């Protein structure tokens, strides 16, 4: 069963990994990705990043994405944690963790999860620039392309 959480609080990747592995000795590899707030965007400094979400639907979407990963790869577990609210540069936004007997499955499932998250999970980012102005981040074609790889079966 995947573990999926949407929360304002930060998270500890090491503690999440320990929880995923706790009490089992059949895991061969753990894949992990942590997204972090950058201090700039498009060459302009960023003071903060605020994530809005759709309570209820966001949890459902993350659970569906994690279930899809578990259906595609022989995972022994996966964890997805995504934050919302106002975050400062350097703070973690999202955690993806996968455990599998084989490294390739763990690596591929990790890439899949973060790509699909970016195009299928209802979150919206607003950047606060250095002068206090705020603007919504626009979706990028490259994210759609990354997610589409998994549909075409080319990855």
């Amino acid at each position, binding site marked *: 069963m995947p573990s999926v959480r949407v929360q304002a609080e930060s998270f500890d990747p090491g503690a999440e990994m320990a929880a995923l592995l706790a009490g089992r000795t059949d895991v061969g590899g753990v894949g992990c990705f942590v997204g972090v707030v950058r201090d700039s965007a498009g060459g302009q400094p960023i003071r903060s990043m605020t994530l809005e979400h759709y309570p209820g639907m966001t949890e459902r979407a993350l659970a569906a994405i994690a279930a899809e990963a578990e259906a595609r790869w022989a995972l022994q577990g996966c964890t997805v944690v995504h934050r919302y609210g106002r975050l400062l540069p350097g703070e973690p936004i999202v955690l993806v963790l996968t455990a599998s007997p084989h490294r390739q499955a763990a690596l591929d499932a990790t890439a899949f999860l973060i790509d699909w998250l970016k195009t299928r999970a209802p979150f919206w980012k607003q950047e606060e620039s250095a002068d206090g102005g705020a603007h919504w981040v626009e*979706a990028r074609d490259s994210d759609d392309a990354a997610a589409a790889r998994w549909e075409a079966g080319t990855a």
Partner: protein
Amino acid sequence: MARILYFASFRERMGRTEEALTLPPDVATVGELVAFLRERDGAGAQAFAHPATVRAAVNQEFAAPGSPVQDADEIAFFPPVTGG
């Protein structure tokens, strides 16, 4: 009554997070609801000005312009997602 939710730039442009709406008789799809909201007032005209950037969910599942809507549905509008 349908419950209509707005997120991100749609929330800002509509000036509200949600509203209760009795769907007009000629609104049976997401696309028809978009057309209705665009015609209704200036906020709607602004929020729904660019169809390519309108995304919707019906009862917390992503929906297409042709997806059916009815009273009692929870219908949400928002721009393309940018999480992760």
